[in-house]
């Protein structure tokens, strides 16, 4: 099962949705008061705040999160410049 990889950076949009292409089934446990298991074939919205699930995902999760944060910073600068 896999999800499509698309990247949609939108100017002025502080959130980006990044879908990753995986060859194995993914399970992300979102740390809320209840453990929530997401089924496969779902996209996951990476927010600037990040999540424990992303950290648990390892190098890919950490880098993806940082990319979102960096892009958000770029957008802020662009908006500021404007």
């Amino acid at each position, binding site marked *: 099962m896999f999800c499509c990889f698309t990247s949609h950076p939108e100017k002025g949009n502080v959130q980006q949705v990044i879908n990753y292409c995986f060859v194995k089934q993914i*399970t992300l*446990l979102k740390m809320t008061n209840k453990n929530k298991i997401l089924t496969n074939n779902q996209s996951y919205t990476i927010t600037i*705040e990040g999540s424990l699930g992303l950290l648990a995902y390892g190098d890919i999760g950490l880098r993806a999160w940082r990319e979102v944060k960096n892009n958000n910073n770029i957008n802020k600068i662009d908006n500021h410049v404007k």
Partner: protein
Amino acid sequence: MSNKKNKTLLIGWDAADWEIIWPLISKGEMPALKKLISRGVYGNMSTMNPPYSPMLWSSVATGKTPDKHGVLGFIELMPDMKGVRPVTANSRKVKAIWNILHNQGFKSNLIGWWPSFPAEPINGVVVTDKFQKVKADPDKKNPMLKGTIHPESLTQELEDLRMFPYEITKAHILPCIPKAAEIDQENDKGLRTFARILAENTSVHAAATNLIRTTKWDFTAVYYDLIDHFCHAFMKFHPPKLNAVPQHLFEIYNQAVVSAYKIQDMMLERTMSLIDDDTTVIVMSDHGYESGYKRILKMPKYPAAPALEHRQFGIFVAAGPNIKQNEKVFGLSLIDVAPTLLHMFDLPIGKDMDGKVALDIFKEPTKPKYIDSWETLEGDFGQHKEVVETDQLNEQEALQQLIDLGYIDKPDEDIGIAILKTKCDLKHNLGRVYLGKKDFEKAKKILLELINDTYPKYQKSDFEGEKKEELEKQGYKEGDSVVDIIPYYMDLLSISIAQNEIENAEHYLSQLRRLDKRFDINTYFSEAKILVAKGKIHQALKVLQAAKNNKPNAEVWYQIGKIHMQLFQFEKAKEAFENALNFEVDRAKFHQALAATLIHLKDYENAAEHALISIELVKYYPEAHYTLGEALEKLGDLENAKIAYETANSLKPVKHVKAEKAIENIDDKLVNKTNLKDKAVYKYRKDQIVIVSGLPRSGTSVMMQMLNKGGVEVLTDANRKADASNPKGYFEYDPVMSIHKDNKWLDLAQNKSVKVVAPLLKFLDPKYRYKVIFMSRDLNEIVKSQQKMIGKDPETLPTRLFETYKKHLHQVDVWKDKEPSVELIYVDYKDVINDSKTVVDKVTSFVGVDMNKDEMLKCVDKSLYRNKL
């Protein structure tokens, strides 16, 4: 060399403990670990003493105890002797598993291992424990030190996988600390600690997942300290709430420890998704962590005191192609990991390794191969050719972390003192390693050197300026030695008690009490043991009961139970052991002690049950198997009793002499099943010692004389001359009177006879075989004879003496039934006089050698039968 079947992933979760894990698994909150357990094996992992993590993880990596591998603490001396620093791989003196695998052509990844900096040049990738140590201040630079990563070419690629504490957001915090907004961050550093620990472990995990995904490897080892550091910071707030913990702090942090386990499980889930079923996975910890009533709120002030909260058993889980499925394994120790890994790679184990291959975990175990040592082999092992220097300035934050955890005091600003203290600490740790290995002589040598060395004292000038606060915080005052020698005395006290050197023990105890008490030392156990050794059992009991009334706990109840056992007060012993179990139900030794007590109370079924629980908790526990054997024997199940005794015998590192004798007795019983009640076997036993015993004035001297004349050599020093009470002599041997202190002379008594009065029988060493001829006599006659002997009125008989003697007789009867090495016949003094021939026949048959019966009969002098009733 690479073989898909060998591929192994080793994951270290420092301080992970089954006591926290099982409830989480049952609630479905650790699904990754649960899946691994169901696919493989699980069990306890026994730690070592002292339980300091860098020492322990080095033992995991080398299969050797710290005296051999050389990593002896949290800090080490810098090579130029200009200071101290967190311990590095330079301290390790022997090869680790990855060095051996390098030599044999295998590829290894090593991430975060403690200690692993500076990175060794192995075939594979090393991301050392320096990688994740970053500065908390976002304005400060964090250059990667040379030696942090091998090969250095990967530095740029992996650098960005370090996470910084200031990156932690509320999305990370709130699931773990939901009431984080209520924290007073000016005064409470909890969130900073949380952020640092989580960031560091994320860095390790990111590097690990990257390397597992992107490199070819045969062996990968990853070390996480997430659980351990969360426990040190937050275990005091874990439920149930401790009385001294403020309610508002409990409500804020009470989920922190559990969240560490859940995060670790999430990381495991991801890691498992990156490997295939041909890879063997091991998840283990180096020790457990106290989460119950034994948690310490006020840490005593001596080095590495936080390790007091480390529990004896950590965890071990393994799954893979040749690993058994869904089975519990027993008896694993940290030093077994490296030998087991070597075996999995079909490599020989060094005979100089202290651990053994855990063959029990394999579906199809094969015979291990051995070589003398990997240390003596020539070749490239991916080791540093020389000691690698590091920059002291960069050590400061890492040192500060160890200080914050409480593992070390802030090193003295005076470099000389800092170096001296570190040297002493490392030396003491080596002493404690020997103590843990029960190599008491080596431990004593080190400890005596430490207490006899002279150390500088703190002067008035030391308490000026900034140093004042730090020194006072550590509890020092002017005139104190810079090196605290109290811990050395504590260990010397333990050793002297273990070696039964009571005078030394009393000396060390008095020294401990005399020295300035900068911290609480519970010495009541030592005091009680000394009193017991001196025969002052009732006083020992009083000490323990006072301690119990002050602060009841499992161990003090257990010690009280042991004393009641010695006093043959079995109902009270039973109550005490049951109280101990109420505190800690999973202590094998408590179940074993209760089982032994129940045997005395003739409750054999419950005895067997508790012995079985004990074995279930700790499979390789010779005493528990022995007690089970006793219970089964009493229940008439001789076949299984024999198996239990044989197991006890095979497990004991030295001969289990009681088990050996018990097995012989069972064999006799199995052959002569109708003779089940016969304690005496009428045959000679190799090297037997014939004991003539009884209460004083019960005819022991005449029996000694009969044996002597009959041809059995008597062990006597003839110091006590014949007199009116015993005209034909006493046949005594002076060392018998101090048998409770020293019974080594018993080897002289083999194939001879020796007189031992009744109260001293229990001090006989069970490694010998005894034929006890117990002289019985009417108690009134005995007391009368004694009164006359000491010049008192024989018609006035002290009743207290009767009670004492009755108690002695009962104790002998209990003792003889319990001791497999003892056979005993009762000989009535009246029968010696009136029916000598029958007595002589019985005695000679019992002793089992040819004796001159006529000469024996001549010894009986009816005129000496006085004080008869």
